[in-house]
């Protein structure tokens, strides 16, 4: 373990920048975006320095620590604000700062007409700071701060144009769904503390061998719930599609490349828990498997280009989660897919943004068509990303996704066949819906109105796209050459001792199989979308269900929202009529008794005397009875 003094700047710089931009207000309008971009770039520089410095160290000296201050210290609950940069977090730090910087640059142009561009950049910086805290925190509680921080930034950015009620609702939905996941993270931290007396990663790891299976399973389940919330995994997936309300660079950065992958980070980071609890691991597999198919299916029916990409993101993260459920070797592949996905999905989102930029913010792909001709750079970079995601060799996705499919098949027994099959089926559907996106958007005939004049985006926008496209092309190969990434991550995820074992299928078989299904998917899509009606055809019941996101919102509405509202109304009524009613009732009884007592006071001396006589008689009776 090495001590570093620079880690704090990774977080502090963007945080301070965000604060400056927000506090100064309109004064900073002129230069705010430049400051933010500069800060983002410098975090990337720091990250790069740290990376090379880490590479120059070896073995146990590689991870770097920086202890800032004691954050909370109550009884045995001690949490330091301290940062940990190890082989796993550096991957994320580089991704976040790198892609983050590119998207900052892209946004300068993309948001140039927006009145509130400064505020947008402030949020972006805030996001970068929070996301870096998430991956740098050395304990679950520190991670939690970043975790909620990115949630907040995501909320602010989704709702950036919150004067539109639907966008405001989408932002709220994202936050609330994330909060459900946060229950998981909160409880996971509580379980950790109750079980191990510590909430730091190292403390929990040290305690795992002594803990009961049940406790570990509970811990794993809670971590998975947290991951599902943040990474839009089943059953908390419904917010991601709506989150596309945010400006497109946000979708690229937060809802494709970085934040939504935090769940994968969390599970990988907590590998010791899942390794020790097969039940939890199986749950991870199930969630990942369901989500990858769910996302892929939803992706097939989306006409909104961003929502199609969002569905794809969900599905791809499903792959990653699936991979993390596959044990030690899976973590590395999950991270590899996460990184390559970061490149190609961010690139494609930026491409989509570029298209929208040229098409007056039109998002309906049915009104695109033949854009490749007018926006060649966008089309090419998008196309490279497309090739990467469907897994065509030698593009990035081929390496990462094939590894996951292969590992899945080799998980052993029926489990291997089921998850492997799911992953393979997912690949086919992915090929289908991504081809659909390409066909609808870039090829075919033009379906846009005449007053729309699509044009290639400015260089500030296409340069980041090109860089990301290069990543989409080359990153997979780089990561995989000599198992570079696997070996790099091995010390963190304990994958060193993992044995290849008796494989169900050889890598070559898997690759061929995968390529085969991809080809099928691509072909179907091309055949099906030779002609595209501007208005979507009605479609059969299945199509309708898929278009309604497999009824996820209907389900939530029926099962959660409406009963919740009914319960709320019930409570409001109960509070008024029952609880306060009892109070008023007591008051009423007193008032009525009072009025009756007033009536007894009728003014007649004789009746007063009678009352006295009755009193005396009662007195005598009582005395008589007491004496008996």
């Amino acid at each position, binding site marked *: 373990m090495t001590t570093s003094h620079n880690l704090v700047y990774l977080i502090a710089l963007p945080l301070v920048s965000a604060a400056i931009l*927000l506090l100064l*207000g309109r004064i900073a309008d002129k230069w705010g975006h430049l400051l933010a971009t500069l800060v983002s770039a410098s975090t990337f520089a720091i990250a790069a320095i740290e990376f090379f410095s880490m590479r120059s160290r070896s073995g146990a000296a590689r991870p770097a620590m920086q202890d800032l*201050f*004691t*954050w*909370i*210290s*109550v*009884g*045995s*609950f001690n949490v330091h*604000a301290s940062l940990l940069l190890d082989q796993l977090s550096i991957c994320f730090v580089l991704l976040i700062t790198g892609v983050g910087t590119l998207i900052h640059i892209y946004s300068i142009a993309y948001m140039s007409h927006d009145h509130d561009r400064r505020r947008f950049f402030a949020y972006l910086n805030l996001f970068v700071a929070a996301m870096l805290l998430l991956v740098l925190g050395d304990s679950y*509680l520190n991670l*939690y*701060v970043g*975790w*909620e*921080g990115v949630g*907040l930034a995501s*909320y602010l950015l989704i*709702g950036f144009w*919150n*004067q*539109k*009620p639907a966008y*405001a*609702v989408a*932002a*709220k939905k994202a936050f*609330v769904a994330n*909060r*459900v996941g946060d*229950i998981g993270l*909160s*409880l996971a*931290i*509580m*379980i950790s*503390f*109750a*079980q*191990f*007396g*510590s909430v730091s990663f190292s403390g929990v790891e*040290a*305690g*795992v061998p*002594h*803990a*009961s299976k049940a*406790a570990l399973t509970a811990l794993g389940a809670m971590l998975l719930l947290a991951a599902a919330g943040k990474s839009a995994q089943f059953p908390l997936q419904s917010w991601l599609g709506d989150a596309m309300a945010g400006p497109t660079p946000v979708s690229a950065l937060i809802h494709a490349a970085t934040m939504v992958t935090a769940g994968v980070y969390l599970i990988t980071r907590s590998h010791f828990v899942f390794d020790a609890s097969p039940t939890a691991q199986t749950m991870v597999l199930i969630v990942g498997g369901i989500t990858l198919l769910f996302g892929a299916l939803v992706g097939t029916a989306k006409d909104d280009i961003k929502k199609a990409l969002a569905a794809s993101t969900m599905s791809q993260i499903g792959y990653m989660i699936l991979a993390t459920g596959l044990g030690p070797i899976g973590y590395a592949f999950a991270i590899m897919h996460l990184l390559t996905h970061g490149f190609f999905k961010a690139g494609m989102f930026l491409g989509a943004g570029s298209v929208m930029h040229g098409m007056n913010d039109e998002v309906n792909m049915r009104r695109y068509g033949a854009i490749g001709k007018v926006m060649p750079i966008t089309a090419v970079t998008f196309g490279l990303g497309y090739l990467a995601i469907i897994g065509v060799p030698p593009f990035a996705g081929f390496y990462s996704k094939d590894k996951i499919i292969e590992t899945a098949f080799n998980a052993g027994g029926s489990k291997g066949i089921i998850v492997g099959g799911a992953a393979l089926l997912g690949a086919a559907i992915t090929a289908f819906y991504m081809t659909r996106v390409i066909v609808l958007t870039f090829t075919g005939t033009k379906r846009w109105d005449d007053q729309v004049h699509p044009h290639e985006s400015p260089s500030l926008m296409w340069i980041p796209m090109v860089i990301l496209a290069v990543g989409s092309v080359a990153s997979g190969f780089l990561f995989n050459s000599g198992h570079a990434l696997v070996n790099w991550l091995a010390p963190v995820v304990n994958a060193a001792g993992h044995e290849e074992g008796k494989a169900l299928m050889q890598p070559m078989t898997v690759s061929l199989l995968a390529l085969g299904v991809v080809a099928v998917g691509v072909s179907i899509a091309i055949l099906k979308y030779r002609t595209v009606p501007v208005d979507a055809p009605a479609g059969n019941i299945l199509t309708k269900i898929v278009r309604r996101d497999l009824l996820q919102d209907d389900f939530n509405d029926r099962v959660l929202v409406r009963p919740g509202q009914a*319960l*709320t*109304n019930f*409570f*409001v009524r109960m*509070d008024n009529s029952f*609880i*306060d009613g009892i*109070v008023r009732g007591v008051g009423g009884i007193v008032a009525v008794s009072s009025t009756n007592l007033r009536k007894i006071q009728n003014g007649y001396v004789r009746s007063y005397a009678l009352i006295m006589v009755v009193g005396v008689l009662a007195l005598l009776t009582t005395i008589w009875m007491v004496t008996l």
Partner: protein
Amino acid sequence: MSIVTVLELIPLLGVIGLFALPKGSTKLIKQFSIGVSLVDLIISVVMAVRFNRGVSAMQFVESRTWISSFGIKYAVGIDGIALVLILMTTVLVPIVLLAGWNESENGRWSPRVYYALILILETMMVGVFAATDVFLFYVIFEAMLIPVYFLIGGYGRGERAQAAMKFLLYSLLGGLLMLAAVIGTYVIATNQIGSTFDVTALSGLHIDSATENMLFLGFFIAFAIKAPLWPLHTWLPTAAKSATPATSVLLLGVLDKVGTYGMIRFCITLFPHAAHTFTPMIIVLSLISILYGAFLAIGQRDINGLIAFTSISHFGFITLGIFAMTSQGLTGASLYMVNHGFSTAALFLVAGWMASRRGSTKIEDFGGLQRVTPVMAWAFFIAGMSALALPGLSSFVSEFLVLVGTFTRYPLAAIIGTTGIVLAALYVLLTVQRSLHGPTTPGNESLSDLNIREKIAIAPVIAILVIFGFFPKPITDVLNPASHEVMTHAGYVDPQPKAGK
């Protein structure tokens, strides 16, 4: 004379000074009152600096005979919990005075009376946290109701008279039950150790369990009304809807804390066995409060009612933390009191400004304020984030400590309590969405943003929320010895980690 006494006397002297000021000088009255409260703030900071953190015993003690025939003393002294609550009070008073600059002018009486009432209230608020004599505590506990009663009834809005009445009757009823318990405790003390109301001496009594349970309930019901625990809460929304923002802040932010403070200082310290007996019931009530308050908050149409119900939910967390009887729970609950004070202050003040600009407290009448009045919207948003305990803001630390402290002893309770965080997100974000987001509601286009005075008033609150979110240690270090003392006295130790290392 103890510095605590000085702290109590300054506002009282201020009241006398207030009536010496010439007539018709409203502005001077306001400046003078804020000046007095600032002097008090400075003295309290001096006190905090001189406070010895390593010690769990009472500090700055002073004890004078007051009513000799009952052994009643004017006895004050503070431990960590009292210190932070007093500091919260002295910080909040100048803030609410500044924030509610114009509140005093629409009342039934002159501004002078308003400021006199608030300063008297400050004296009592400091006194009630500092009292170490049960009788003295009780006297202030009850007497405090009167200034608040007049503040609500005289300067409030809407059905203010009824609201003031409801508030007072509820509180009096609880207070009178407590009086019976105070008397009972005193009588037992007289028989065992002689006439005294000293809380430390009383905590050593041997009481048979049936009596102890009754006495405990006497105290507890009073406190559960004060820091409203379901189902004794219905006075709070009514009061909050009618009180001025400044009064609401002092009422929910400080006065209601006397309830939870009293649970720690008196219920648990004096009757540890009964506290143990009733813990399951109290935990259930706390959980109901957490969820019920949150649901009711979601269903509120009135912004002040909303804040009131969120507070009920938060008081549920505080009570939960207290009765979890772990270091984390107790320190967390004490810290929660402080944080809730500030975050409620922020909410009420901003809501008050919104309401006074719009002329309505209905949430639906706002809308799109983000565009019209960005600074005000931001202030409200941050206050809301604090209410939902966003990490990075101080309320997160306390809420999490409460939950983690509860979990180590009562996992199920903590799990149920944790679901409250989703409801919190809902009630805050729904309100934010309805009032700040969306298109600007007709009639709101020309609302003015916060002026410089209002910004100065709200800035320290928000700064406190942020700073203590990242550096709560100064407060927790002060609270820890006190919590430890309470736990030790009640015979509890923290549960050990289940999986040993």
